[in-house]
């Protein structure tokens, strides 16, 4: 088994190939992320960081190149197998919380665990533990609409870690929050990530937040370079 949690090898991705409006988003992107390492992905809007995260998280496929997670090449796996890996090994956080509005905070965290075959009681217990760790256990029975922006994003963090993934991918997780809340929520995220020892790639515009991570890479002109 590989020592790396995530290896992206020479990824390319484009849209509208052969047409006048062809866009080549990724042009040979390579990245290694070791267990416990937190990498800041810095890039301006439209540079392709969401595309890169989607490919790394097996939600999208590259035109060329290879995605390896925990030593297994994911490139040619069937959709069913990629979905299974995503469920058990990858956690996602988006800029917007993307919580299910009809469910409570607790239920939002329980759901992915049930999908992963965990018993309901155990799933609820883990969800409560996670909510407690980000300081909003008392908000467990509230629906997303009754939570503040910071609380919604904390619930999203908990949901992403519900199945104890080894890889966390976050697309500007605090980008939708005011600076003060962003700082507190980011601190909560980093504490969770450090405590669980998982590998993380966190896209951000905020250079101050990026500086608090282990390593920074910049996506520019379709290629990654050390920042």
């Amino acid at each position, binding site marked *: 088994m590989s020592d790396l949690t995530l290896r992206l090898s020479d990824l390319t991705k484009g849209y509208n190939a052969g047409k006048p409006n062809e866009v080549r988003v990724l042009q040979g992107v390579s990245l290694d992320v070791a267990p416990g390492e937190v990498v800041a992905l810095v890039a301006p809007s439209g540079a392709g960081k969401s595309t890169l995260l989607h490919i790394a*998280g097996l*939600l999208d496929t590259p035109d060329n190149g290879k995605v390896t997670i925990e030593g297994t090449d994911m490139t040619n796996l069937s959709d069913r197998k990629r979905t299974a890996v*995503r469920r058990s090994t990858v956690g996602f956080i988006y800029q917007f919380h993307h919580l*299910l509005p009809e469910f409570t905070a607790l239920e939002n965290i329980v759901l*992915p665990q049930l999908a992963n075959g965990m018993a309901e009681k155990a799933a609820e217990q883990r969800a409560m533990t996670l909510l407690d760790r980000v300081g909003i256990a008392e908000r467990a029975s509230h629906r997303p609409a009754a939570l503040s922006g910071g609380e919604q994003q904390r619930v999203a963090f908990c949901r992403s870690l519900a199945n104890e993934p080894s890889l966390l991918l976050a697309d500007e997780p605090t980008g939708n929050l005011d600076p003060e809340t962003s700082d507190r929520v980011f601190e909560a995220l980093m504490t969770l990530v450090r405590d669980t020892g998982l590998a993380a790639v966190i896209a951000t515009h905020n250079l101050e937040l990026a500086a608090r991570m282990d390593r920074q890479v910049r996506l520019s002109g379709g290629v990654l370079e050390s920042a």
Partner: protein
Amino acid sequence: MLVKNKGREVGILRTMGLTEGSILRVFLICGAGIGTLGTALGVILGCLFAIYIDQIFSLVNFVAGGGVWDPSIRGIYNVPAELHLTDVLKAVSLSLGLSWIITIFPARRAARMNPVEALRYE
């Protein structure tokens, strides 16, 4: 309509790792549930309508001030409303069958939705 409105939720569930099959089942159960509920309500209301057709007729006549149905014009002196079990069963079968079959197509569309696209254009 449900599939169109729930695109974002489908994207979220797929991101979480729910399979296409799971999404398909969610929408099938939901669609079939709505179809079954609609059929049940239809049967109850339809049977009540047939049983109480004379009273309903009188009520409409009363509200409209009479003359809603003038037999001398149409030559029909009473509205036949007989309730037969076989007719009810045929109607139930047709309604359930159609509602369940029609559910399959949007459910398949939801299951095959690209999660990235579903979340991007929410």
